[in-house]
């Protein structure tokens, strides 16, 4: 028994090849390694460090109508994706399932998750969570009627887009019947910077002029699309489109504040397109 104990003790520290052959002819290899006893011990978990961040989110429930409030949620950024939308989904999954917000593509192409993050309009799926321990404030798009929490009523915005008739209108049939209407590359390049608009409403809801006249002023998004159809070489109703917009309220409420260009999550410049329409009004 004593010999086995000694053997086990020897096993912990080092292994000696116990050979009965004469030592002169045999090389003794000593390799220190942890034996079976060591393997039974469980590794302590890596020190749990957390990176907590507080999100203040606008809450208002139409079923229990009280004053709207900013509610605090703490999230561990180490277990969350980098974007604000990841944080919102994590809050909804783990902390508060009643948090309501729109989202769809999570890649900045659908425009559903437009909201006001730390004072700036943007898409939640494209806005990175600010590093550091400062609080992030998330509110719905400014000066829009709230349906619930972060969901706003977009019908006025969509109706304004519909009112500029965003489709191709022609008086004559296409030059080769049954085939597409040809357009040169230069004419197609004129549409760059306008066709990429995803109608997220970040620009219109950042424009103070749109805040004060939401029903009469069309807003940067609708005017950007109006310019897209005015500049399309295949469209033949250019003069009628210009006359439809040539109104003191529809177009000329724009005072080139240019908040729209700053807010656009796709990097477009609606202010520049509105300038283009105003120039055409002067010359046309």
């Amino acid at each position, binding site marked *: 028994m004593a010999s086995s104990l000694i053997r086990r003790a020897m096993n912990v520290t080092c292994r000696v090849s116990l050979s009965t052959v004469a030592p002169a002819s045999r090389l003794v290899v000593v390799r220190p390694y942890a034996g079976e006893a060591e393997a039974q011990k469980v590794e302590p978990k890596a020190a749990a460090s957390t990176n907590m961040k507080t999100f203040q989110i606008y809450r*208002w429930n*139409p079923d229990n*109508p009280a004053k*709207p409030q900013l509610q605090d949620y703490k999230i561990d950024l180490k277990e969350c994706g980098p974007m604000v939308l990841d944080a919102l989904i994590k809050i909804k999954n783990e902390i508060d399932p009643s948090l309501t917000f729109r989202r769809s593509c999570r890649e900045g192409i659908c425009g559903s998750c437009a909201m006001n993050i730390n004072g700036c309009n943007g898409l939640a799926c494209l806005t990175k969570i600010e590093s550091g321990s400062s609080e992030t404030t998330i509110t719905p798009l400014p000066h829009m*009627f709230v349906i619930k929490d972060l969901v706003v009523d977009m*019908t006025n915005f969509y109706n304004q887009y519909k009112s500029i008739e965003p489709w191709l209108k022609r008086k004559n049939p296409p030059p080769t019947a049954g085939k597409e209407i040809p357009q040169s590359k230069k004419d197609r390049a004129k549409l760059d910077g306008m066709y990429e608009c995803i109608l997220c409403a970040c620009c219109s809801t950042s424009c103070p002029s749109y805040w004060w006249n939401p029903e009469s002023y069309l807003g940067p998004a609708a005017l950007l699309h109006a310019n897209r159809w005015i500049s399309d070489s295949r469209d033949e109703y250019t003069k009628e489109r210009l006359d439809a917009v040539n109104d003191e309220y529809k177009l000329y409420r724009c005072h080139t504040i240019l908040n729209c260009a700053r807010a656009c999550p796709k990097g477009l410049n609606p202010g520049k397109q509105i300038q283009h329409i105003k120039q055409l009004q002067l010359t046309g």
Partner: protein
Amino acid sequence: MGASKGQKLSGMQKQVLSLYRGFLRAARSKPAEDRRQIESIVSAEFRQNSKQVDRKNFLYIEYLLRRGKKQLDQLKSPDTIGLSSVNVSSSKKQNADT
């Protein structure tokens, strides 16, 4: 429950009343049986809200007005034949890990 019909009505009260009138007018254009059903649902909803909702809760009243206008626009279309409502009761007991 606010001023009686005789006294001066506030702008918001006038809006609520004109919405109610709009619903009743829309109901008139439907067949008789649907008309009675629409009128009963609409008047019950307006009466319940007038008792429960605080007069000063402008935010909620405006929300209800906007919702009512949208519902009225849908009702006005000739395809719609009536209203119905579903009561979803939120039960706290959910089946967790099963």
